[in-house]
């Protein structure tokens, strides 16, 4: 016989792991877009007419 309570804990642990991975992925993507913007903007700012 399987233990329903234990299964729930396993499910919850797996779900928590997936959520953390998804959150880290999204934060990384936002950080990446920010850094790319700064890098691409940097050169253009230096070239702009004063």
């Amino acid at each position, binding site marked *: 016989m399987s233990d329903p309570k234990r299964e729930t804990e*396993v*499910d919850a642990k*797996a*779900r928590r*792991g*997936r959520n*953390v*991975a998804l959150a880290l992925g999204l934060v990384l*993507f936002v950080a*990446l*877009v920010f*850094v*790319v913007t700064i*890098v*691409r903007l940097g050169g253009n700012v230096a070239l702009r007419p004063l």
Partner: protein
Amino acid sequence: MLEAQSGVRAPARWQDFVQLLKPRVMSLVVFTGLTGLVASGQPIHPVLAAVAILCIAVGAGASGALNMWYDADIDAKMRRTRGRPVPAGRVQGADAAGLGVVLSLFSVMLMGMALNWLAAGLLAFTIVFYAVVYTMWLKRSTAQNIVIGGLAGALPPVIGWAAATGEAPLNAWLLCAIIFIWTPPHFWALSLYTSEDYARAGVPMMPVVSGAASTRRQILAYSLILAPLGVLPAFTGLGGVAYLSVSVGGGLVLLLLAARLFRSRAGESADPRNDDGLYDVRAAAKDARNLFAFSILYLTLLFATLLVEHVVGLPPMELF
């Protein structure tokens, strides 16, 4: 969550979703893409270079997830693939497909915005070619599946080159051609000793459709094209003396192993009337394994030498 529905043995862990991205294939794609980016010779901001490689890697991973979603029925029948997350029941097919589509969109859009739209377009083409043309059409319908489908695996150097320069010149396509011609002998050597698996799954791989002798002949033919093609970058202003040495030496070993495989009985079933038959077939399978293993080393050496020459700043060959 979909995973909680009946029929799923265990809840999906985040590692299962990483496995959907085929990390080992991803590492080869990253390596060849990086070589294309560096070999272009165009200075590029390190952050943008890293983003380009990340986009290539994520795009390849997205193709892998779409492939695992669509091919779950085939994967379940083959020993090598039955433990993958979808056929094993750890991840729902719809979740794998969703991951593939989302990562495809993210990688192509980021490549376009951060680098240029030629690189993004080539990346999008690669993903669609692998997921739709190869996975959904060619793989199940023709013995030429990995020949034509190999284009998807061959394009990363062109994407890397385009990301750095905004162009895709002939030298970039030469790197693509090397991987394209390398793919058939590489995969057919593997399929010679795994053809039972493919036959069970109904995948028309060359040994299943045309037989082992025809496959060995075609492996030799492709190797005869590949060996000189691998040397060509030394004469187009791309490779230097080190590349010439490695490509000539590697090409000769490749031809030797392909010739040995051609003369062997690899992929054939043993003749029950002949006691020596089983031994011959087993020994021949070793010839197929040798070519398969060396083909990986050969391609790695070619691209690694090119990469090192450009990073260190060694000059390409001067012919005139």
